[in-house]
């Protein structure tokens, strides 16, 4: 047990902070500019821009969980018990609900009137 060998991780913490800030700034820049080559595309149900946001979000989540919540230092078994459970359940729920939402939209949209000329 390395109980008294608690060396400081300050350098690593600041590095992670820098990375999280850079990712946030990149997200905000893309969010403001919304380049048409990414925004007006369609790939697997949404635009490439949205996929970029999603991936960057997951990268941020990874760094927060691994380095701030110290999942990296936990036993592999505990880490998997936490991460896999969440990831599988959330993926499952999200997939079903978004497919269902898309279906309702497709079915409902033709019945919504956008014209008021009698």
């Amino acid at each position: 047990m390395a109980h008294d060998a608690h060396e400081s991780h300050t350098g690593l913490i600041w590095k992670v902070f820098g990375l999280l800030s850079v990712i946030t700034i990149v997200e905000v820049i893309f969010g403001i500019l919304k380049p048409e080559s990414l925004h007006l595309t369609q790939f697997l149900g949404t635009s490439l821009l949205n996929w970029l946001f999603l991936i960057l979000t997951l990268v941020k989540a990874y760094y927060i969980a691994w380095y701030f919540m110290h999942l990296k230092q936990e036993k592999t078994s505990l880490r998997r018990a936490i991460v896999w459970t969440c990831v599988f359940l959330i993926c499952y729920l999200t997939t079903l609900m978004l497919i269902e939402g898309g279906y309702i939209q497709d079915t409902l949209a033709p019945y919504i009137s956008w014209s008021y000329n009698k």
Partner: protein
Amino acid sequence: MESTVVTDNSNEGVWSGGGKKPFAASYGKMMMWFFIMSDALTFSGFLVAYGLMRFKFLESWPIADEVFTHVPFIHGHFPMYYVAFMTFILIFSSVTMVLAVDAGHQMKKGKVTIYMLLTIIGGLIFLGSQAWEWKNFINGTYGAVVLQDGKIAQFVDNEGHQIALSDFVVKENIERVQHTRSNGLWYVQDAGELPPYTLNEVITSFNANPNVNLRTEKIDASIKQKTVLSRAEASTYLTKATDVVMGANLKVNEYGKTLFADFFFFITGFHGFHVFSGILINVIIFFNVILGTYEKRGSYEMIEKVGLYWHFVDLVWVFVFTFFYLV
């Protein structure tokens, strides 16, 4: 024989689950992870519900860039900047928290105290920012009219930029009285605040001003922007208008779908409540650090457990930020 029954009398009366440490995690830490897991799934439920409703109304959902455009002390249209600032504050308070945990491992009481204080301050700034964001959302920016079927129609200028009602509506010289239950009308519900203009004033001013156009909630899929109507079509819309809306609440929302406001209030509210309780817990721990509770205990593990919760709140915000402001 001792392998099956563990009796650890030394910890009697202490809520620690005995000496066993599954996954090499202490009882308190394990329970914090249990809580975080359940809370993570709760938030997932909320966000997935938001996703379901958004996909259901994909062609008419409000565009976040047009809703959250305020920056303190500056007038104008600045999407994203303020919420980016809020995100930054929360990440930074996460950093000071993890620095406190780090200092705790090395039993440095002074450093833990300072970093805990910074974390609390970061939390308070975030909470204040959120309150300000809510205030802007509730008070509204432009104002709109609501049609008889609940659709929202907003006003734009010739370039398609949204304009406020106060930019073109001329007030008529009439007296308007707010009906309340207290002045004898016991059979009516107290309506909300009177909107700044009457429907009549809005329609008259619209007809008198050819530079104003009407915009519907429907998103033009080819440019991913709301559809602007022709002047002729706009007047047929306005004949179906029933009310003037200013701002957003749980019943009506000048920015579009009321559901958007409902989810915004509920999810950011629930998250804000987490931040609030996080600050409360941090304050308690902060005083414990000053009093030397953990110094006497010989371990600063409590900072780590509270830190887990605080980081989790940050983690949730990362997702709320993505789904409410970016995507």
